């Protein structure tokens, strides 16, 4: 098993005809992801290297029966695109787009919860999801990851590759890598993904990579204490970030005394979660704990 995406994934891509959209869609297809179609208003009837393009989600869904959508459209059109995908009945919507207004994210999140409670949102401003050996949806460079028993959930992209690569070099693979994104209103939070990893048979250890801003890590700490039986290793970026400054990600900002890296690390450690102070230390902790676990590592 893995979580969210696998060999059953049927992917529809909004913004497939754009430069980035087509590049990554074809990358995903090369990896083995079943890309069934794309949506670009006004370009229905065309194709991207054999992938049919439709004018609307409604058309695309009716004809290609996708269960997953990837949103690659520019920020000002992204909210409508996500809502259209949800209205057309797509169950999992992964938004890569960076720079969506926070109020749009609020509107999307609350509309989907009200009108399409069965729909799961991932992102925006995220690298997507990779289930090694099964499917890749998004921009995660798959070559660093092999199939295995480590579940990874992270607010940032490159940092995840950094940690994942160090774990891979120690001979361990991943069940699924989920980028939940760096924006203030993510469609799924750490808690949502932790719940999935806890229930996933393949996953034996979870790596959680957080950063300054908001309280998602603190909420994760509470959830882990109550509901997660699997070992969790965490990393928090931004110990040196000054208050009031946005550090690249829209959501990465210390507001007054709230949202600091120190408070997050403390909250996690208070609940027994090991927190590595560098990406290397996280990988070392993960490898050490995997070595200690009774089942043999999947290499």
């Amino acid at each position, binding site marked *: 098993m893995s979580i969210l995406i696998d060999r059953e994934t049927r992917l529809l891509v909004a913004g497939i005809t754009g430069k980035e959209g087509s590049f*990554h869609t074809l990358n995903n297809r090369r990896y083995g992801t079943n890309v069934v179609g794309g949506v670009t208003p006004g370009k229905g009837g065309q194709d991207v290297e054999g992938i049919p393009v439709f004018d609307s989600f409604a058309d695309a869904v009716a004809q290609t029966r996708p269960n997953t959508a990837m949103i690659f459209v520019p*920020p*000002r059109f992204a909210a409508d695109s996500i809502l259209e995908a949800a209205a057309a009945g797509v169950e999992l919507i992964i938004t890569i787009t960076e*720079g*969506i*207004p*926070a*109020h*749009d994210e*609020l*509107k999307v*999140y*609350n509309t989907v919860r*009200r009108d399409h409670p069965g729909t799961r949102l991932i992102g925006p401003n995220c*690298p997507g999801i990779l289930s090694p050996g099964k499917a890749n949806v998004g*921009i*995660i*460079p798959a070559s660093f990851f092999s199939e295995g028993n480590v579940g990874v959930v*992270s*607010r*940032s*992209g*490159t*940092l*995840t*590759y*950094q940690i994942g*690569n160090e774990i891979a070099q120690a001979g361990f693979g991943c069940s699924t890598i989920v980028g939940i994104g*760096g924006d*203030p*209103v993510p469609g799924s939070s750490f808690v949502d993904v932790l719940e999935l990893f806890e229930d996933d048979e393949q996953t034996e250890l979870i790596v959680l*990579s957080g*950063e*300054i*801003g*908001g*309280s*998602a890590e603190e909420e994760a700490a509470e959830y882990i204490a109550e509901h997660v039986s699997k070992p969790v290793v965490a*990393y928090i*970026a*931004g*110990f*040196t*970030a*000054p208050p*009031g*400054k946005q*550090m*690249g*990600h*829209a*959501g*990465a900002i210390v507001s*007054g*005394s709230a949202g600091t*890296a120190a408070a997050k690390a403390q909250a996690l450690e208070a609940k027994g979660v090991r927190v590595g*102070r*560098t*990406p*290397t230390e996280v990988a070392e902790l993960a490898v050490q704990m995997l070595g200690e676990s009774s089942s043999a590592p999947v290499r």
Partner: protein
Amino acid sequence: MDLLEYQGKQLFARHGLAVSPGRAVATVDEALAAADEVGYPVVVKAQVLIGGRGKAGGVKLAADADEVREHAGNILGMDIRGHTVHTLWIEHASDIATEYYASVLLDRSAKQPLVMFSTEGGVEIEQIAKETPERLVRSHVDSLKGLDSEQALRIATEGGAEEDVRQGVADALVALYEVWDAEDATLAEINPLIVTPDRQVRALDAKVSLDGNALYRHPENQDLSDTANEDPIERRAKEQGVQYVKLDGDIGILGNGAGLVMSTLDVVARAGGSPANFLDAGGGSDAEKIKQAVDLILANDAVKAVLFNIFGGITRCDEVAKGLIAAFEEIRPSVPFVVRLDGTNDEAGRALLADAALPNVHPARTMNEAAEMVVALAAGREEAKA
């Protein structure tokens, strides 16, 4: 994007929230003219994006022109905790019967807007929440419906607003919500929200943060914020679309991806160094982009050494190396660089760098090694191994 008080008040006025008449000025003469226009007595208020203006002497009451001249002269150019006062807000002084607190913010945890109200105005919200939490009403709003006057009145009542001004407070809350909603704000705070002796409800201060990602919808708000106090390098970076934050140290940092850059700052600090900046080069690998980034980092005179920390994902390390070599040939930096290339095509990238043999560029294999090397170089120690 944080707004100055007077900019926030202008947004308030745009949405029907009562504020006292006032003018933003930059000179003593303008202050005198403004005081004549709004009517004495006036308050002369320093416009800076930092708390504690009153304590620092940046807010003064003036009864006549002599006092305006004196206070405006003293406050203009004043340094308030690192912020120079370039602008004053001259406002007609208000008689105050009561001070309340009101705010609307984006509650990231609940994923809904949160309205807060308290009768403990004039006190920092953190302090109200800590010391008198029972006097703070917190009420989430359904963002798909907005704040209606019924809910606003409930908040005012529960919060203990005096009966004869409850409706006025509720109206102010609805207007404040409209500011938050219509202007794409992440925070709209009034502290204090005052009640005058003739029972008018009015915003005496304004703290507003706008969402930079939504500015395309608000061209009229584009040039707000405290541009005069903006760090010149940060301003240049913003104009160039580069994510750059100036810090206090002496080690320049460049990386790709916000999380990795934050992590790099931390790893450098752990190695005993002090980062001079945050710079996310994003997925950029072409020489022009790297040159731009190096230029920004070196524009800070405090920088004694620079760390490039690249983990190639979609970005290929050989492309980054080519960009670096081309940029270096043009810029010829005088400070040492430590370059760590890992990830996609890292070996090819490292080979390119080795062949180019750029002066004073030290390759590193891992993040930790790179951090130790750059800290040693910045400290003037030459033990860094090439």
